[in-house]
């Protein structure tokens, strides 16, 4: 889902840079309010984890590959604003050092994987969990939070790819950037994510939430008092 350089037109990637920079500003302010110096090791671990989990490419036999992102579980454990920064840091390193995702597309990729994904995941978790303390319901909420979060990110990326032929074509009608229309981009990205990559993300989110419920349940941001929920 790392959009490379050359696939998005400037009229797409420039506004998305603006949007991401604005959200980073808010996120840093929120982290300052919500977390303290004792959370710093967990923040570092969250970024390291997201970097590593994205290295595990999952194959669709004979087809494409994809991977989990980890933004959902980070949002549940440390809050969605922390996930914004942790995953953005990872995406910027990937683009500059490893050529994974374009330099021009950093704003777009951060928007999809570091903003849309953690927030959709966090909201999904709260929506399903409600005020329930029922363990099964919490674990179902965790699965869906990872599943829906990654699917939403993939949908946004597919949308960005798919509008390029419409908004950026040459005088001869040939696409100048990403060549495939929405009618191809959305199903292609939706199917592989809904049937494989998002399931992996969901299972991983449940497994990790279970681990933290057992070992350090006070850390879990999404399980703190209800007053936190409007975040």
């Amino acid at each position: 889902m790392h959009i490379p350089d050359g696939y998005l037109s400037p009229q797409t990637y420039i506004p998305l840079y603006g949007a991401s920079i604005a959200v980073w500003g808010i996120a840093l302010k929120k982290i300052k309010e919500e977390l303290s110096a004792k959370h710093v090791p967990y923040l570092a671990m969250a970024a390291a984890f997201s970097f590593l989990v994205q290295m595990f490419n999952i194959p669709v036999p004979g087809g494409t590959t994809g991977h989990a992102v980890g933004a959902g579980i980070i949002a549940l454990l440390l809050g969605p604003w922390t996930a914004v920064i942790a995953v953005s840091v990872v995406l910027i390193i990937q683009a500059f050092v490893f050529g994974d995702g374009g330099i021009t597309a950093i704003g777009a990729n951060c928007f999809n994987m570091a903003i849309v994904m953690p927030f959709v995941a966090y909201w999904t978790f709260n929506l399903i969990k409600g005020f329930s303390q029922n363990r099964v319901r919490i674990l179902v909420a965790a699965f869906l939070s990872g599943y829906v979060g990654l699917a939403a990110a993939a949908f946004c990326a597919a949308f960005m790819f798919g509008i390029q032929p419409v908004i950026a074509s040459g005088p001869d009608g040939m696409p100048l950037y990403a060549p495939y229309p929405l009618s191809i981009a959305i199903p292609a990205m939706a199917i592989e994510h809904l049937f494989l990559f998002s399931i992996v993300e969901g299972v991983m989110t449940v497994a990790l939430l279970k681990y933290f419920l057992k070992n350090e349940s006070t850390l879990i941001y999404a399980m703190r008092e209800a007053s936190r929920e409007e975040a």
Partner: protein
Amino acid sequence: MKRLEKKLWLWLFVMAVLSPLGIILPEKFGAEGAWGEWGVDALEKLLGYVPVCLKKTVDIWAAPIRNYNFGGEGAILSTRIVSYIVSAFIGIVLACIIILIISRLLFKHEK
């Protein structure tokens, strides 16, 4: 460092060492790469042409460790595996450095 923190770092270390599964499995199953992340050659094959502006900007940045691989495009699997593990550790170190710098700025008034 707390016991849980130590344990979590250990798990991250294990993940880094196992990361080459992320290149070995796709190769075993004949999976090519992510949708929408084709290089110029692959696009030429898929479409029969390469969109004009895409071609101009696709190589705008020369990443120092392109594709988590030190060996270049034709590198043998063992080179790619070693590169991948080294890349994983470089990623961890860079992520920690940047997070520590940000945290310093955010929490400078706390001890």
